[in-house]
């Protein structure tokens, strides 16, 4: 490997102001004792940062894209089909991206020992799935619309319906974990996690939209959710920001 290749290392774009949440966000109480207090050190994007784990299609199994069946039966709740594209900031699709999802059941209950039993578990709903984007960056899975759930952040606090998404892009620094919300959810204005993203337009990108195109008659409502991963800098010099 020649020196030129190193000098030519193109980093990933730094976020536009206001488009990512701060670590310390007092309305979300759990940030108070977990956010770093010292300034972060600007990390140059070296070979270690522009590479990242590459998963093969053997990372997923048949049925991983269908959350509506478990333990020999069908889950209760409104069936949904969630689909969209994973793109880079310049609009290029991200193929072979591993997408992991998890969520509460239709009653807002997670299959987890720490989740308060405010509503029953559904024996036929586990709440996890995995998909990989195709060559056009498209993904699709079938699930149940999750219910809102109460949490202890403040008095009468409710999380809006959401699905957790975890994505591996092409690089260590393109890792993304986010939550997808639903168009028209009345709880969104009151949710500190959703509102931790300062920029209103960036915040709205987390809301999926109802989609006739993918709605299947007599079966499921479609929701569309595109995900944008960080893109590359045009030149190596931008590395310095």
């Amino acid at each position, binding site marked *: *490997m020649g020196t030129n290749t*190193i*000098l030519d*290392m193109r980093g990933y*774009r*730094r976020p*536009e102001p206001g*488009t*990512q*949440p*701060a*670590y310390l966000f007092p309305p*979300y109480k759990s*940030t108070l*004792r*977990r*956010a770093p*207090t*010292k300034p972060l*050190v*600007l*990390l*140059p994007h*070296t*070979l*270690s940062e*522009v*590479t*990242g*784990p*590459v998963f093969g299609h053997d990372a997923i199994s048949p049925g991983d894209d269908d959350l509506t069946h478990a333990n020999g039966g069908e889950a209760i709740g409104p069936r949904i089909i969630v689909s969209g594209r994973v*793109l*880079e*900031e310049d*609009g290029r699709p991200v193929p072979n991206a591993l997408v*992991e*999802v*998890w969520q*509460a059941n239709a009653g807002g209950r*997670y*299959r*987890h020992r*720490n*989740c308060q039993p405010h509503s029953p578990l559904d024996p036929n709903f586990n*709440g*996890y*799935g995995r998909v990989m984007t195709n060559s056009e960056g498209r993904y699709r899975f079938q699930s149940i619309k999750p219910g809102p759930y109460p949490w202890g952040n403040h008095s009468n606090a409710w999380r809006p319906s959401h699905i*957790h998404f*975890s994505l591996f892009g092409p690089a*260590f*620094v393109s*890792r*993304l*974990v*986010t*939550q997808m919300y639903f168009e028209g959810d009345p709880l969104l204005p009151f949710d500190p*996690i959703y509102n931790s993203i300062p920029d209103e*337009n*960036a915040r709205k990108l987390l809301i999926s939209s109802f989609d006739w195109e993918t709605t299947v008659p007599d079966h499921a409502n479609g929701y569309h959710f595109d995900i944008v991963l960080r*893109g590359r800098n045009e030149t190596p010099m931008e590395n310095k920001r």
Partner: protein
Amino acid sequence: MKLTATGNQTVGPYFHIGLSRMLIPVVAGPDAEGKRITIHGRVLDADQKPIPDALIETWQANAFGKYAHPEDMQDKPLQKGFLGFGRVATDDGGAFSLTTIKPGRVPGPGGILQAPHVEVSVFMRGLLRHLVTRIYFPDEAGNAEDPVLRLVEPDRRATMIAKKVPGSEGVLEWNVNMAGENETVFFDF
């Protein structure tokens, strides 16, 4: 076309449902060449209390300093079956353990070799966006000239350098302190 990158949101308290399906506590199988190491540690909050719901992911080169990734064009051998990726969740005491091999040196800015290091992402309830840090190795001559370690104030560098566990060959201790006096160095990545 210029799109806005999707904002991050916390993994929340129930990430195990989705992410513990693919735990990878053994990064290097028996076939991988290199010095085998086990890294133990705990994740602690600002009050030094253990964090029982954290997820740690690691990314590293193989023993030759080669990443299993198409952008690593170095003429160095790949190791069959060595992905270089680890993922562990903390237990009720905030502890985690990862078995791997010590990575080789990889090039850094300006052609200066970086000291052996492991990239780390930290996820948990209360972190709206994951944090990034690195694990370096003790008694490593390359640490002094490492171009990334040198960006950090000298008295904070030790938070990224794993410690030997006396009497246990190949066992290292590396803790994550989210905040406070011994706060781990985290990067703006």
